[in-house]
């Protein structure tokens, strides 16, 4: 009986979750986090940003994803409803029960809002608002952040945090100089070392009678085993379509 009840709840949650997609509104709130006026204001604002940058933006507040993985869930929303922007699409999904959020970008958007610099920039914009319970502020700042990042890309020709073509990366240049100097010092030591072939002999292998070697005690005893585990670099999992977008998330 309980099993049937839980299955029904899960089905309802799933249906309500996918109803977000069918709504195709920029902002959907299935968790009661926003007032109607706030949703209206946000939709208007996002609509303006979408039009200005020719992109699609989605913001979804849900009570729960019904046990689904946040990455998977956010990508499903993105690719079903917000992936048809000329310059790409981005989705912010907030799970209120589990206090988790996830952003997903499509293949075009990930070039303009990168996982390395763009996503952390957006996180800084709204996570404090989420933690403080200001969900309207969070969604508003998320939209502002996307606007800023897109403006940066359109102005500079490269994504926020990326180098402009021909610009020298100071970190890589510094590292290259340090390694080159180190190799230079090594080469110098080797060249100076080659000026002498006078060395003390440490072994007498030249004088070993090869047929005289008899090894008569040869025991290998197993002592113990240790196991080392190294996680593989976690590439972002994508939905079944084989998307290569980006994104990132966290808790609040």
């Amino acid at each position: 009986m309980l099993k049937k009840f839980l299955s029904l709840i899960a089905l309802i949650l799933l249906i309500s979750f996918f109803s977000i997609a069918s709504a195709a509104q920029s902002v959907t709130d299935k968790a009661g986090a926003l007032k109607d006026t706030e949703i209206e204001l946000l939709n208007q604002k996002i609509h303006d940003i979408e039009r200005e940058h020719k992109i699609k933006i989605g913001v979804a507040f849900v009570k729960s994803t019904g046990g689904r993985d946040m990455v998977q869930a956010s990508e499903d929303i993105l690719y079903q409803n917000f992936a048809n922007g000329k310059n790409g699409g981005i989705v912010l999904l907030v799970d209120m029960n589990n206090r988790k959020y996830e952003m997903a970008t499509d293949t075009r958007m990930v070039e303009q809002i990168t996982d390395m610099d763009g996503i952390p920039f957006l996180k800084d914009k709204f996570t404090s608002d989420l933690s403080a319970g200001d969900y309207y502020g969070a969604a508003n700042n998320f939209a502002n952040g996307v606007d800023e990042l897109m403006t940066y890309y359109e102005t500079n020709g490269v994504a926020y945090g990326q180098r402009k073509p021909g610009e020298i990366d100071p970190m890589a240049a510094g590292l290259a100089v340090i390694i080159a100097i180190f190799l230079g010092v090594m080469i110098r030591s080797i060249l100076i070392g080659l000026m002498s072939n006078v060395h003390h002999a440490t072994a007498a292998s030249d004088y070993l009678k090869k047929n005289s070697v008899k090894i008569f005690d040869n025991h290998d005893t197993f002592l113990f085993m240790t196991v080392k585990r190294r996680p593989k670099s976690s590439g972002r999992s994508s939905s079944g379509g084989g998307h290569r977008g980006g994104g990132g998330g966290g808790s609040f």
Partner: protein
Amino acid sequence: MADSSVSYKCPNCGAPLSFLPGKKTVTCEYCGTEFEISAIEELFRAKQEIAVQAAEAQESKWAIEDAGSEWSSDEAKALHAFTCSSCGAELVCDENTMATECVYCGNPTMIPKRFDGMLKPDYVIPFKKTKQDAVNALKEFYKGHMLLPSNFTANNRVEAIQPMYVPFWLFDSKITAQAEFRAEKHHIINTPKEVITEISVYNCRRKGKMSFERIPVDGSKKMDDAYMESIEPFDYSDLVEFSAAYFTGYLADKYDVTAEASSARADRRVENSAIEVLQNSVENFDAVQLESAAVKKEVGKVSYAMVPVWILTTRYNDRPYTFMMNGQTGKVVGSLPYDKTKAFLYPALCSLVLMPILYFIISALIY
């Protein structure tokens, strides 16, 4: 007065005799007569006995004069005078010189008194390389050293070339060695989420016997140990029974480091090689590390041999540079000077070339 030294002169024409590299006889370079080594030994035995007595007489005189001289007792002990039997000049050499040549007439000379109170060498490896071989080998040695100052080779003149028989102790040993190693086998399992490495640790015990034959250790304080170890190895197939006749025309020193004092160097080398042999028998492991080892010498035999070495000295910027060549194999060893400007410029040039390459590699790895 009897001579205190003996010149090996040709019984046929009276010219100095020399042992020529690569020959098994003593040859007179002037009249071409060849003598068997045993015949020469027999011929000059009586002369050597007389020379010994004469040297003893001279030494006692030296001691009396020494009482009032300005030499310190240590200096006087180290310096010895003798007369050249060819031209009569008074020559001075150090206490270990067994054979030399007169600086005035170039006559090859033995000092038989120096053979007293010491062991007679068991073997000698005769010189195979000539003076010209040594000069050519040194020129060849200069090649391929990028930092060699340009004017070192341009103005280079070998100041002195001396062929010398250096005393060596040859150590034979049979040993029992045992060692414990910590060895690891690595098994890597790739799963979709992680890389799992299973490391199985083993204790490996090895015990064995082995023999080393004729490990050479020089018995001369004058010769740098590192140089003497660097001119190795020697081809013992040329080793022959010792005869003083091989010394004619060459310098020769007697040992001043005993076999006992030299043995530690041979023991250390035997120990390292024995452990290496045992470690090589620890097979099919991914990592092997020595834990403990013990090497016990069961039989240790020592022989005494004279080994041929060419000593070449040159000078650069008022500093002497000494090179040594194995008189048997022709292997040259030595330390060359380096040009400080080149030592800065070449690596700096490499660094400059590497810098943009490294920059692109690092940039590609970061982004």
